[in-house]
């Protein structure tokens, strides 16, 4: 791997930067068309643009899939996507609506100035015309609503020039064989119905210029590796178990031995689930979440709700989501703090997927204390303001096809009174004993729809654990987070995520005083109508 993202350096717009921009064919072409668009782009009697941005995403992808010990896909490709966005009107009121992203064109892979500029020119023209239409439509729409909204559509920020290193995928040749070695293990386990391993490796270089004079370039490499094993119990219930590795530093990639070891455990778990007892009809009592399960919980219930998403005209609420009317209110227990810090490169010994120094609006990333002592202090902000929060705090991010909007970077969840892991487990068992229960539940990992992926009964008598299956939570939402967590551990754990851009959630284990667990409403599936072929 070429140097990854560490080589950002910040300088004011002086000669060295100028020459760097000029030396980069992509930035050069973007700026040349920007200059032309800024001075000349105007249709007849219509408004000229007041803001233009170009975002070019150069994505190199390596895709490999394996099933049951054999390769299914191996693909290496590179695509350049150009997005041009034009705003007409002014900062106070422009054409932007919720999903206005501008115009997208595929751009040449060759650094050929003429061909690059041709595509930029076409995209700009489409984006400007679309903006004029949106502007007219939005004026009509706004007339339906009485009060003039006091917020601006687009914040004013300082221009920024920051030219980071570009990245390339390093040798990826080990992966097809490694993936096959992983799924090959399943052949020794007749109860495993299907076994897959998938690698998605991306080297993403993003180039950005806007009409305010910003010019940025940055690169990120992400490896997204997922393994899955599926089994079915005699009553038809199906289980997927797997392990996801989202890695942004080559040095943290697992060795083949590590992958094989991990996958053997995956298979052990899925086989154990087949024979595990069903959860009871109803349970109400203490539940201990592992740090990993807590990161999933906060990724689902807190991360989207602290991202400022402006409601549509006429809709009430400061933002969308569960915290729409929670500004300056308590949303978590008093001892919990939440901070989003994209500038942190590592935590708990791992490189963070949500690390960046400049966001996709060309605004410097900032650490933001979103929730202090349980109180929602602010939101993560892009350049699209919401009530009382007129400026960006460097959290505008997007994939190749969208306009930047407020997104999580590295979300740190911490307790002002962290409890040692062993003590937390003790607290959990005591709470359980106090209820006179024979056992209580520990969530090792959470899956889709926040249903427990691995759920254990922990017996008060001797602390031994028993895996159960078929469980779901009766209610697990932001209300439970606010009132239900009684303590958090000191075992900060990182979960990296990647979906068009990377983000991370870092959290310790958490003890809930009382949650309700029930049987999963998802029905069982039929067993195979005839047996699988022998695999070993």
């Amino acid at each position: 791997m070429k140097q990854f993202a560490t080589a950002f350096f910040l300088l004011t717009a002086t000669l060295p930067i100028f020459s760097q921009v000029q030396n980069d064919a992509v930035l050069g072409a973007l700026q040349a068309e920007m200059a032309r668009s800024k001075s000349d782009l105007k249709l007849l009697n219509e408004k000229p643009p007041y803001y233009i941005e170009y975002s070019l995403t150069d994505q190199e992808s390596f895709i490999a899939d394996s099933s049951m010990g054999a390769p299914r896909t191996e693909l290496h490709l590179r695509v350049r996507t150009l997005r041009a966005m034009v705003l007409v009107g002014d900062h106070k009121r422009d054409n932007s609506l919720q999903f206005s992203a501008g115009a997208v064109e595929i751009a040449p892979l060759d650094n050929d100035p003429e061909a690059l500029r041709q595509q930029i020119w076409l995209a700009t023209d489409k984006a400007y015309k679309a903006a004029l239409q949106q502007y007219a439509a939005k004026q009509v729409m706004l007339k339906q609503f009485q009060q003039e909204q006091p917020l601006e559509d687009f914040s004013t920020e300082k221009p920024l020039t920051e030219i980071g290193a570009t990245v390339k995928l390093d040798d990826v040749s080990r992966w097809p064989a490694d993936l096959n070695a992983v799924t090959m293990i399943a052949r020794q386990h007749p109860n495993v119905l299907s076994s897959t391993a998938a690698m998605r490796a991306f080297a993403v270089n993003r180039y950005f210029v806007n009409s305010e004079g910003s010019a940025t370039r940055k690169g990120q490499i992400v490896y997204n590796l997922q393994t899955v094993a599926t089994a079915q119990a005699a009553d038809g219930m199906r289980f997927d178990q797997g392990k996801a590795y989202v890695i942004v530093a080559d040095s943290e990639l697992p060795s083949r031995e590590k992958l094989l070891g991990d996958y053997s455990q995956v298979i052990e778990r899925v086989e154990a689930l087949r024979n595990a007892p069903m959860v009871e009809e109803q349970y109400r009592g203490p539940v201990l979440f592992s740090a990993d399960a807590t990161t999933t919980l906060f990724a689902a219930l807190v991360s989207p709700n602290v991202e400022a998403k402006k409601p549509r005209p006429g809709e009430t609420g400061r933002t969308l989501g569960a915290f729409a009317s929670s500004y300056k209110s308590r949303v978590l227990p008093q001892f919990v703090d939440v901070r989003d810090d994209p500038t942190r490169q590592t935590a708990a010994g791992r490189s963070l997927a949500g690390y960046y120094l400049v966001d996709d609006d060309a605004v410097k990333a900032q650490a933001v204390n979103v929730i202090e002592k349980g109180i929602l202090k602010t939101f993560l902000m892009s350049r699209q303001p919401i009530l009382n929060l007129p400026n960006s705090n460097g959290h505008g991010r997007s994939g190749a096809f969208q306009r930047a909007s407020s997104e999580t970077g590295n979300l740190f969840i911490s307790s002002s009174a962290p409890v040692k892991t062993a003590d937390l487990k003790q607290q959990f068992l005591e709470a359980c004993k106090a209820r006179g229960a024979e056992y209580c539940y520990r969530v090792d990992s959470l899956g889709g729809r926040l249903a427990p992926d691995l759920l254990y009964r922990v017996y008060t008598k001797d602390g031994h654990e028993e895996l159960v299956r078929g469980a779901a939570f009766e209610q697990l939402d932001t209300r439970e987070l606010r009132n239900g967590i009684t303590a958090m551990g000191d075992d900060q754990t990182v979960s990296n995520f990647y979906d068009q851009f990377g983000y991370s959630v870092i959290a310790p284990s958490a003890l809930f005083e009382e949650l309700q667990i029930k049987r999963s409403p998802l029905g069982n599936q039929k067993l195979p109508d005839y047996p699988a072929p022998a695999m070993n």
Partner: protein
Amino acid sequence: MSTLRAAGVFGLSLLSALSLAAQQNGKNTDLVLQVMQQELSRAAAGLQKSDPAPYFLSYNVDDEDGTAIAATHGAIINSVHAKRRLADVSVRVGSPALDNTHGESRSSGNTAGQLPVSDDPKALGHDLWELTDAQYKQAARAFTTAQSQRAVKADEEDKSPDFSAEKPAEAMTLPVNAPLSPDVKVWEERLRRISAVFNQHPLVYESGAMLYVTNDRRRFVSSENVQVTSGVPLARVFLIAQTIADDGMQLMRVETFEAPALDGLPREAALIEHAERMAGDVEKLRKAPIAEPFNGPALLSGRAAAVFFHEVLGHRLEGQRQRGEEEGQTFTKQVGQSVLPAFLSVADDPTVRTFAEVPLAGYFAFDDEGIPAQRVEVIQKGILKQFLMSRMPVRNFLHSNGHGRAQAGFMPVARQGNLIVTSTNGVPEKELRAQFLAEIKKQNKPYGLYFEDIEGGFTLTTRNEPQAFQVLPVMVWKVYADGRPDELVRGVDIVGTPLAALNRIVQTGDKQFVFNGLCGAESGSVPVSAVAPAMLFSEIEVQRKAQAHDRPPILPAPAAAGGAR
């Protein structure tokens, strides 16, 4: 009675397939085919006692291997090589008279998925099993629905069975041609040079040159003991040039070249020449006046007539169009009657590889239901004789004629292959034009329309839509009665009803031309050809094309604005 017998035959063949497949395993050298046979036999045996039991099983495995390289304005925009192996698993439960694919449940006949690309028998077998089990479950559910629908619904118009009985075929191993492997670097350079032609034409806004090379290999096995393999590599070059007229009309030229081998494609100099001509056409079209609505004589070039016949006639001759409750059934009750002038005959012949040295895109030796492709004389001397058939029977046409086609992942239906229109009333080009002028004068029209090229079209065959068609002409000329030079016009759409239009053909040319293209319909996208001579219509109706309102770009192209280099 006949359906009962058919069921018996099928039941028998399913059992016999087990032993026959076992015999065949010994002499099979293609490992993938061996695994397919083994798994098919295992599935047939394993599901034999299930309720409902399958009466037909088939596996279609496609090895897709493709290279795509695209350039615009002298730069590469995409260059990728990819391969994958896709399986279509078909399981039919019930009986041919009524099975899970009945009526609206047709898609329940098929489950598609990816298989390993390596020839690993265990992994292949496992993934086929997984797909088969899923497909069986889907078929069983759909069969219950089909039974209850039949019970509650009034009598259907067409009580034909859901699946045709066919004679068991021998195993067919067709030659798998050596795969084409384009030299990527050489082609990238070549496409850069070809696409750079458009740099000199700032009014051509979007343009490109592309190479697609596919090395597809197909394997088919069924419980009727059919076993076929084939592979037909294909190389294609696309050229595209697009502009927008000052009034917002989108104008486009597309040229396609196909060949079974890379050296069969036009040379670079010829492609550059084509690109130049397309750029010129597009620039001329930008300035051309818009055509007025018109009803009068028209001359269609061979290529244009070929597209016209594919859209207007070909689609309506596909078997399933005569059966669907939603279908308009234009020709259903016309068998034995005259539907075209007596000097015209139409056949669909997928078995022809080339026509007058032009490779035909619609060539195949067996269809996607494992039936050998056949030449089908659909219309002889103007009289409708039969339809293009898959294994979905329609009244009076109970057998396939090898036209069941589908893109991987879709259920096959009857589709065109190479639609060939022949005429006994052909005259040389010059004479045809003279007759055209005479017709214009006879009708007292100031001009007629000459359709030089048609890009493509679409057809509505369903009942609740008007029985109409629309083709998309690009190069259309006004031919004046008074001898003025021909004048290019734009914005023409041919409209009308099919039967009426077809009977206004009065004369044809004496030379046939080929149109190769991709045809999209309910069973996905399949390559097709249409072959026809130029045709003189006494009357054709055109309307003005629905107008787009996108203005041309506001700023001049970067190259025109002072250059980017």
